[in-house]
């Protein structure tokens, strides 16, 4: 599993906690997913290799191109690469939610039908290219008049082709509508509401509850109870972003001045990755979020832990860290519930140490990564809204000790 998160640490990650340890402890099933999904991917029609039409080009003048072998090797390499992809925590081909499942099913259907159409076109092209060579008996000349019977046959072919094309696209349109309807119907059963507000370049996540003091905020992570449809209300504070967790559902934009909604449900436990899918400026590339699907009871326990105010620092170093935090620039942007830090510019840090990653999925959480991030956020995520807060080495260590205690 560590192979999934080898994001290079800019600082000595060795001293930090194993970023994955926590996940194994919480019963992550990612390795099992691998076994589950492999056969499925193989069962579907394989994508056509790059240059699937090279055969045609070769036939056109095979004597001129000695590199068709190289092309073949490259095709095989591409196919191998496809197979090695297998499974991903951010893949539309490995659905774990009903919505993504329906979409993936529709995708394979489209692929099968359209690959067949493509094959027909390629065969026709190939035959058209080589066929006339067998008719050398035709008189030579720069051009000839088409023969009436052939013209009539071709016209009939054209009619059939047009009708066939129309039938295929009509059928596919019908399937597309049906899946669209199904997905909408799934959305009517949502039991839980989360409000996601996208900001340059992170995600503010608010768990709403009818009882106001049971609402809370977190950042860059969404945890869901397995099998429970969750309504996600989508807002943007600055520019347009797009909420996309491919394993669960397609994307929906977050647009300033508008409120969008989507419904996601995770059918299996596991950790998935989402990423902003609408270009939103400088650090669009590093605007990810973690989605963790957990059993209902674990989810409730997590929710209770999130509702609690921050853990009070227990040792001298952490108390010093809290003092530094509350008297430096940190407090201008961040909230730590239970303290006087209550600014809402940056992510709520009340339980930052319990999150899988920092800086919107840029680095896995570890004390070492956090140190690097606080020391120089502009080096890790250039252009990020987080400034360099001039802390001394000692202050940095204290703040780290404090933040690392905020489980």
């Amino acid at each position, binding site marked *: 599993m560590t*192979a*999934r998160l080898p*994001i290079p640490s800019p600082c000595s990650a060795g001293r930090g906690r194993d970023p994955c340890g926590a996940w194994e402890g919480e019963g992550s099933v990612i390795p099992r997913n691998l076994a589950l999904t492999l056969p499925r991917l193989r069962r579907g029609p394989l*994508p056509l290799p*790059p*240059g*699937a*039409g090279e055969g045609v080009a070769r036939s*056109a003048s095979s004597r*001129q191109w000695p590199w068709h072998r190289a092309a073949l090797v*490259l095709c095989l390499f591409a196919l191998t*690469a496809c197979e*090695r992809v297998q499974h*991903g*925590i*951010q*893949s539309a*081909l490995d659905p774990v939610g009903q919505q993504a499942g329906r*979409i993936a099913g529709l*995708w394979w259907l*489209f692929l099968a039908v*359209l690959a067949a159409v493509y094959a027909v076109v*390629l065969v*026709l092209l190939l*035959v*058209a*290219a080589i*066929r*006339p060579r067998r008719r050398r008996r035709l008189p030579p000349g*720069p*051009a*000839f*008049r088409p023969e009436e019977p052939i013209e009539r046959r*071709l*016209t009939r072919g*054209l009619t059939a*082709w047009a009708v066939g094309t129309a039938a295929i696209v009509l059928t596919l*349109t019908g399937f*597309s*509508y049906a899946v*669209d309807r199904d997905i909408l119907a799934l959305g009517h059963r949502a039991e839980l509401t989360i409000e996601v507000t996208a900001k340059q370049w992170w995600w503010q996540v608010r768990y709403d509850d009818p009882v106001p003091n049971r609402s809370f905020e977190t950042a860059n992570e969404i945890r869901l109870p397995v099998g429970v449809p969750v309504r996600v209300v989508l807002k943007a504070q600055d*520019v347009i972003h*797009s909420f996309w967790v491919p394993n669960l559902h*397609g*994307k*929906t934009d977050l*647009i*300033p*001045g*508008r409120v*969008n909604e989507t419904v996601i449900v995770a059918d299996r436990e596991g950790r998935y*990755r989402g*990423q*902003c*899918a*609408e*270009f939103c*400026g400088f650090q669009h*590339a590093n605007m990810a979020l973690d989605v963790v699907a957990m059993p209902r009871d674990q989810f409730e326990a997590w929710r209770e832990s999130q509702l609690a105010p921050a853990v009070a620092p227990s040792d001298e170093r952490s108390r010093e860290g809290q003092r530094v935090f509350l008297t430096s620039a940190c407090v201008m942007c961040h909230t730590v519930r239970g303290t006087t830090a209550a600014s809402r510019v940056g992510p709520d840090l009340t339980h930052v140490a319990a999150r899988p990653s920092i800086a919107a999925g840029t680095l896995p959480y570890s004390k070492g990564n956090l140190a690097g991030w606080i020391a120089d956020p502009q080096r890790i995520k250039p*252009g990020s809204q987080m400034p360099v807060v001039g802390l001394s080495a000692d202050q940095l260590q204290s703040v780290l000790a404090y933040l690392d205690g905020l489980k």
Partner: protein
Amino acid sequence: MSARDASRFIRRDGPSLGEAETHARLERTWATPPGLWGWLSSVDHKQVGRRYIVTAFVFFLLAGLLALAMRMQLAGPNQTLLTPDRYNQIFTMHGTTMMFLFAVPVMEAFAIYLVPLMVGTRAIAFPRLNAFSYWVYLAGGVMLWVAFILNVGPDVGWFSYVPLSGPQFSPGKRADFWAQMVTFTEVAALAVAVEIIVTVLKQRAPGMSLNRIPLFVWGQLVTSFMVVFAMPAVMVSSSMLIMDRLIGTHFFNPAEGGDALLWQHLFWFFGHPEVYIIFLPATGFVSSILPTFARRPIFGYTALVLALVATGFLGFGLWVHHMFATGLPHLGNSFYTAASMAIAIPSGIQIFCWLATLWDGRPRFATPLLFVIGFIVIFVLGGLSGIMLASVPIDSQVHDTYFVVAHFHYVLIGGAVFPLFGAIYYWFPKFTGRMLSERAGAWNFGLFFVGFNIAFFPMHILGLIGMPRRVYSYPAGLGWDDLNLLSTAGAVILAAGVLVFLGNVWHSLKHGLVADDNPWGAATLEWATASPPPSFNFVHIPVVTGSNPLWEEADGLPVVSGLRVDQRELLLTSVVDAAPEVREPSPEPSIWPLLSALAVTILFIGSIFTPWAVVWGSIPLAVGLIGWFWPKSAPDTPEPVIE
């Protein structure tokens, strides 16, 4: 007759006038004056067309270099070759340059050069406007690239979505340069569209009724109408953006009652037809090349024309499929799904007609035909992935991922650049009088085809396994590394193909085989004149008796006579039947289009910095236009004598 003073002896081009004499007199009348001044004031559609083609190719190469830079950055995870700021500028410049400064202008360039030749007339309609359009286009492109070099290149994507491109989130002048470049290029494109429409509808050779127009010309006609209806939408929206940024309007500011989605509607109302504005001329290349090398008339002429027209209409009903993720009502989205699917029908008909032409023909596999075959292989795949994108659920997954990047490169490179290369190999002898090397052409095609597929096919998979577009970097471990490396390798091969092409052009310009008038044995009128054509295109205006005039009239085309040879004169014909109607003068060379274009440039660039530029800049522009349109005295010579 040589004893008499030719300048005072007025004569029509008549059968009794000797061929050499007519030629010499026409040359005197139509030639562009020599020297720098002549070069700057030229209104010859062939010179302007050549300039357009060369300029567009320079932009193609520049944008290609940017693409290579991006592929280098993305060859592996967490690369730091480019900073995010530089990367964002580069991908914006790549898209903007390819779409606005290469693809549309190069298609128009071919129209400017070839349409008058293919319809058998002496000059394009409104030749001064044509010269003006080139200077404006050049100024817009140079402005954008100078801005990029000075690190004020746009960095908000070629689509410049608000609010990201608005005053709050894009301070500085980067987005303004983008918006003003749009204004420049759209002014140029609209001018060319009007010229093409008028040339096609009113200047066709006698007998070239609507059902005998070459398919390339049909494609350009439909395209020009699309330009006329699509481009104003983007000009309006880019002007609104500039106003939001410069003078504090709030068209797109939600906080003040504006709407961020308004931009997307306006932009894509242009942006989707834009794809067909690029693709339809390319279908014209294919429909020109295929019959020549299959050596039979195109199959399904009527069906192909109807498919072009149908695509032209349907192309305006698809724009919302770029906005399926924005949360628009589902019923509305469904309409656009159906419309997007429906466009497969005319496209399918076109593909069938081309296949049928090849099927029943006796193909000769010269380089242009290779590129056409490459076009079919690649474009069909891109079209089929387009059907996937038309489906709302599938689009919700792959929208704004590398799947879409793969799709539109298959459609645009496969659908437009492959035919374009084929067209260059095909018409190069007409443009220059020399043939391109066939051997280098095969290498060019092979490298291009293989490189293209290796570069772009993996992107389909990358998108499906979660890689979003427009990211300057990506973490390792998401399964994207190998495919990205493969893609970069393909890009390098593709670039090698382009290098072979450049070498071929460079070498063939000087050492290529000398081409005769009709080296490929083609059927359309541009091959009925010399290679390269004289300044007046045709000594006599040909008369057309069928769809493939040079095949049907193998013994020489009938011609009409009666146009003046001492003044620039065109023959106008009726819209449907191309029956001769009237003789029309055609303008002389003039420096005013260039001066007016300079005035427009000052106004447009100035208005990036101050709204007062619109006020003060209108003065030199008014001077330019007054000079341009200064009334000329009517020809003082009496109606010429017919010999």
